[in-house]
């Protein structure tokens, strides 16, 4: 059975003033499934809709249409936000220093979680539980007791944030750019944690990122998003090693490789305004696609199944 099903999820925002109101489809008919104990990457650049999807899964944004189904239950049918999260959904955010209120001690969030979700009866039991979760991320309660967010390094705080999310024993963790604000030298300690959570605790992770190198390293499957659409879905091996969609290729080739032998050779032309691409009829990538054809500008491509990978591109039509 699928742990999480996203069915035709769409979110439309209105933008602009009274006279020139335009509609931006931040997420356009997005569907994907997740199995238990799987790391699924949602990749793309800023403004591609990946964070909107995360917020809708968490119930922080209401979808314009479509469904989020977790363990067979539809989000719309659950009475409130807390009950939805109690089903086993938690999240980790991008900026560890923004995750916690700078004026409050970090441990307060742990005790509040325990109190609100009734995870322990006594203070000792609560501390024991906190210690258990912190040890999973390589920390102890004493490291955290009585301290404020700015007394930690970014890497430490992000691990604390992960420990907090584990308190309720979730089976689904939404990680929105969890390492982009963490120093490169400490990044892998966070990324490795997600692997450990999957392998040891059976937690599924929606790993949202623009960094395809860590996505390749950590995840099982990947969906690449562009301007609200998923353009390619499949196993990371297939999608990242042999990209089918021209956008996936561009994105992958634009990651600077930490190897002086693999420098960028060809130059690229940068795209037009974000808004133009959102409003484009036909394929949204047509404006800067190297393989663009006439049909791309007229008709939005359908999802095709090519070699076990789902691609949204006219190029593969009839092959």
């Amino acid at each position, binding site marked *: 059975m699928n742990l999480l099903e996203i069915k035709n999820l769409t979110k439309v925002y209105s933008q602009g003033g009274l006279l020139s109101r335009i509609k931006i489809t931040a997420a356009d008919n997005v569907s994907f499934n997740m199995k238990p104990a799987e790391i699924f990457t949602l990749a793309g650049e800023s403004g591609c809709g990946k964070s909107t999807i995360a917020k809708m899964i968490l119930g922080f944004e209401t979808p314009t249409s479509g469904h989020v189904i977790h363990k067979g239950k539809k989000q719309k049918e659950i009475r409130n936000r807390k009950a939805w999260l109690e089903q086993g959904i938690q999240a980790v955010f991008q900026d560890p220093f923004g995750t916690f209120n700078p004026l409050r001690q970090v441990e307060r969030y742990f005790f509040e979680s325990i109190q609100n979700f009734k995870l322990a009866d006594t203070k000792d039991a609560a501390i024991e539980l906190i210690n258990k979760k912190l040890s999973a991320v390589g920390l102890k309660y004493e490291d955290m007791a009585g301290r404020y967010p700015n007394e930690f390094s970014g890497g430490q705080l992000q691990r604390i944030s992960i420990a907090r999310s584990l308190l309720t024993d979730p089976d689904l963790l939404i990680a929105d750019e969890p390492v982009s604000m963490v*120093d490169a030298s400490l990044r892998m300690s966070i990324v*490795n944690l997600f692997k450990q959570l999957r392998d040891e605790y059976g937690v599924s992770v929606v790993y949202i990122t623009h960094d395809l190198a860590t996505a390749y390293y950590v995840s099982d499957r990947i969906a690449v998003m562009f301007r609200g659409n998923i353009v390619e879905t499949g196993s990371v091996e297939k999608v990242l090693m042999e990209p089918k969609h021209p956008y996936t290729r561009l994105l992958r080739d634009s990651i600077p490789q930490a190897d*002086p032998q693999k420098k960028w050779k060809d130059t690229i032309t940068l795209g037009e305004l974000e808004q133009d691409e959102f409003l484009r009829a036909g394929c949204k990538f047509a404006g800067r696609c190297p393989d663009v054809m006439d049909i791309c500008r007229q008709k939005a491509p359908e999802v095709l199944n090519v070699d076990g990978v789902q691609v949204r591109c006219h190029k593969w039509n009839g092959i």
Partner: protein
Amino acid sequence: MTILKTEQLRAYYVLDMMGTKKEVKAVNGIDLDIKKNEVYGIAGESGCGKSSLLKSLYGLIEPPLRHIDGKILYNINEEEVDVFSLSQEETRKLRWEYISYVPQGSMSVLNPVTRLEETYRDFLESHVPAKSKNEIFELAREHINKLGLPQKTLKAYPHQLSGGMRQRVTIALAAILKPEIIIADEPTTALDVVVQRGVVQLLKEVQNELNNTIILVTHDMGVHANIADRIGIMYAGKIVEEADTETIFGAPKHPYTRYLINSLPQFGDKSVRKSVPGSPPSLDKLPDGCSFNPRCPHAKGRCFERVPEMVEVNNGHRVACWMEN
């Protein structure tokens, strides 16, 4: 030929907080020798003093940052000039014409309420002697064209451009007076990967065309691998290793550099990567001896007692580690 040199440069933040004095050793004895016509990369984690070093190199040491000791020497027309001997007026003159600066957030240099062509004009008028308005616009247009930016950007306000476009305009502005040195502080950090590639590409084009020097600070080793000729690895206010890019990536000596390089994931390779253990030290409470000793698996004996000096282990490859000494 050396274009910029520092000798045992030290600059600390001296803070007085509610009666307790605090010294943050942001730049703690740095020797640099940056050549003409190279891209010199400085890498390090946040809080290691990279930005303070850049500010110092730019001659912009302002309280609470204080110059403690050491020299910064610019090579202006084959003549060594000590930056600290110059008057404020003289350093200001050098800016943009000899050395220019690309900050991380491009919004801070572009005036949000004027069109970019006005910014260009103000800027050129104060630096280029007596030119008519049309000539100046012509110059700006030519410049923008050469860098492959669309003409209409000149008519736009900064907020109308995307982050990547703004950052490219900032780079274009920094390059317009053909400075000998361009300092770039994390110029691509907030940008998307594709845009980042465009910005790095532009930096490279600028450098090729002007034959000048770029000092690039970023924590992204991938960017360094792509653009830098030489790299200095900075840790806790010091340069701990310096070599050409191939050597840094191919044969790093310092344990910190090794961790840094080995922690980077690569396509097609799923083998386990490990982070640098522990956390960076805070610059006001440095450990005795080598600053890296609490995180170093090889630390022993003198690592805890004395600070290792930079030594040259190979041609142009310098390391500050007792293992190599």
